[in-house]
């Protein structure tokens, strides 16, 4: 591995942080890195989700598989997921879900006794384990919103009953989307907008205005005093090329030069609530590191050749 080092020191600047929302800048790295992080967040950060359902009584209108599928999609608080085991690698149990290292058991018992329709929600899922519970979407401020009731699983009429046992396991989004902690993970390249001031000054105020308005998003603005066009929000630019086309239509090509900065990304991360958005990013970095370690460890070994085939030679620097 002799030779030039390509190591870079990426920087992260957090712009906005809430429990389930995070916006940050990632600088001094390239698209491969940013995308790896995005992909890991979607597909490889583990969470806990209901994986096995045993239905005892179901006289509701929805069939068993339907309810099982709905249960699976309920996000469960998964701070513990990183330290848990996959039930397939768990030595302590035979994978039946009764084991503290790899699974959590839930019970649901609901029966409608009144004439009013009973909503069975995620809050009716009972578990003795307080670390893994259905995500609570209620506002901490405590106003009686509709979301406070949790996620509706099924509605029961008088006399209908639902009784089941469910086992939640650790998993990753690659295996099933229910294990994906990410609701939205996306990034954009930071735009670099340069207005050709000289050319801009050749425009009349009217022309400037129509040019500014040609952008579907509010990127440019005109200074009311100096009548100068300036960039008000570069990130609002959606790479739609509208202003460039407009400039060409006005007979002023090169009025503005817009490029994407190859090494700065603006990430938006939204979590399902299973883990905090900030934790999601940290976990993703941790997993990415583990994956790289696995490559590094097997780099010089014979197994590397079997494992990576032709790639092995590349990794040894050949």
């Amino acid at each position, binding site marked *: 591995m002799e030779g030039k080092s390509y190591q870079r020191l990426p920087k992260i600047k957090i712009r906005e942080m809430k429990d389930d929302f995070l916006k940050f800048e990632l600088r001094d790295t390239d698209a491969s890195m940013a995308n790896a992080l995005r992909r890991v967040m979607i597909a490889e950060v583990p969470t806990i989700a209901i994986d096995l359902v045993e239905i005892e009584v179901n006289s509701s209108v929805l069939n068993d598989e*339907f309810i099982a599928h709905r249960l699976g999609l309920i996000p469960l608080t998964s701070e513990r997921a990183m330290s848990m085991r996959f039930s397939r690698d768990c030595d302590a149990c035979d994978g039946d879900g009764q084991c503290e290292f790899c699974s959590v058991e839930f019970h649901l018992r609901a029966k409608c006794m009144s004439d009013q329709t009973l909503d069975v929600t995620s809050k009716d899922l009972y578990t003795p384990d307080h670390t893994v519970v259905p995500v609570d979407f209620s506002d901490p401020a405590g106003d009686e919103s509709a979301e406070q009731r949790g996620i509706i699983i099924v509605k029961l009429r008088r006399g209908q009953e639902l009784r089941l046992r469910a086992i939640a396991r650790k998993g990753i989004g690659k295996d099933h*989307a229910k294990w994906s902690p990410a609701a*939205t993970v996306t*990034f954009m390249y930071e735009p670099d907008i340069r207005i050709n001031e000289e050319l801009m000054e050749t425009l009349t105020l009217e022309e400037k205005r129509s040019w500014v308005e040609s952008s*579907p998003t509010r990127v440019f603005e005109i200074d009311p005093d100096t009548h100068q066009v300036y960039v008000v929000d570069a990130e609002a630019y959606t790479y739609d090329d509208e202003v460039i086309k407009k400039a060409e239509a006005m007979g002023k090509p090169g009025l503005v030069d817009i490029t*994407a900065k190859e090494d700065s990304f603006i990430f938006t991360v939204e979590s399902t609530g299973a883990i905090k958005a900030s934790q999601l990013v940290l976990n993703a970095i941790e997993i990415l590191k583990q994956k790289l370690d696995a490559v590094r460890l097997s780099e010089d070994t014979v197994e590397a050749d079997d494992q990576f085939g032709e790639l092995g030679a590349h990794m040894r620097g050949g």
Partner: protein
Amino acid sequence: MDTELNLLVYPQKPLLMTRTIELVGYDKLGAGQNATVAVMSFSGYDMGDAIVMNKASLERGFGRCTVMRSFSTKLQSYEYGIQEKTVRPCSEGSDTKRMQLDMDGLPAPGEIIKPGDIVINKQTPKDTWNAFGNRGVEYKDTPVTFNGLGGEPSVVDKVARFSDFGGICGIKYLMRQTRQPEVGDQFSSRHGQKGVCGAIIQQEDFPFSERGICPDLIINPHAFPSGMTVGSMIELLGAKARVSVGGSPYNGSAFEESSGGADKVEEICKELVKKKFSYSGKEFLYSGITGSCLQAYVFMGPIYYQTLRHMVMDKMHSSYQSKPHQLTRQPTYRSDQDGVRVGENERNCLTAHGASMVIFERLMLSSDVTTIEVCGVCGSLGYYNRRSGKKICSSCQKETDISTQKVPYACKLLIQELQSMNISMKLKLAEEEINDDLLNHVAVNEF
């Protein structure tokens, strides 16, 4: 009980309405889902109207459907009140595992039945002429096995006993299966833009926009010129505007823009711009695989998609050997147990490749090859008399210069059928011209 039912698990209201849809109440009984469609080429698995689907969308319930099929078994009744009956499942023996039944010999709703399992533990009387009625009649086991819906495990949804006007009793049972879309299942928008699912791809590999929108499915742009479905594009724009602006759905009725009956595309596009979308409905996407920008803007938005009932699970079949046709002795191509036919197109394809030996093998050796005796003198068919060990020509009525030939059985049949209509077909045999070089070549190869 309906013989077949296909239910969509999560039906939705269409985002774009037309007047007829309102009239027929299609919005009240949805038959599809609003899928975010990206019109672009992706992975090559979208050729020829195929669509590429997002695995995460499917797992979250897109296109998921419940298939229900009813089956019925009659309980035959005989004279003297003797009848077939259902009995409690056996508690020991080899069949116990295949028999997850209630005490009445019928399955309980909610039970998972695997293919090959017994659904009805039926018994048939051994003799039906016993005048003493049910007493003393011996029964034998004639259990009904379930072959599965498309060979997959299914759930019992409903079980009912019935009797028809003839007094025949029986049991009807409804089997249920919940299916997630798989490669080969068919989908269609409301414009007849149907296509099979060509590939299911992980969400992280799918393109995404900087707003975080990731399509549910990708269709190839080639579908538009061949399908000539302008409505499809109008629907996409209308639905996109509807979903971003909110309010009542746009009216997309055809040919009614001028009379004011439908919303104009122009107006819809203006709404899109208000919500910071491009007026053309195109979006700037990033590749999910590399993270770099896609070179072109992609037309993306919601289109109402329906899951069609043609599913590979029901259609896929293969066979090693099947019962040949009685008359022609050729392999059959009728049921699930039969194989796949090398039809005319396939034969033409093989011909184009010059794969004559493959044609020979498929159409003759693996099909209906038979040996016939041909008379060298008159050219008609002869036969081999096993008792005398002589080959006799039936036309010359004596032992002649007869040679054995391999022909398709259908050919032999044709000769004989023509013969029965007073047309005599003669086979003129000639000594094969053997090329010495070729023979030597073969000989060298063999040793």
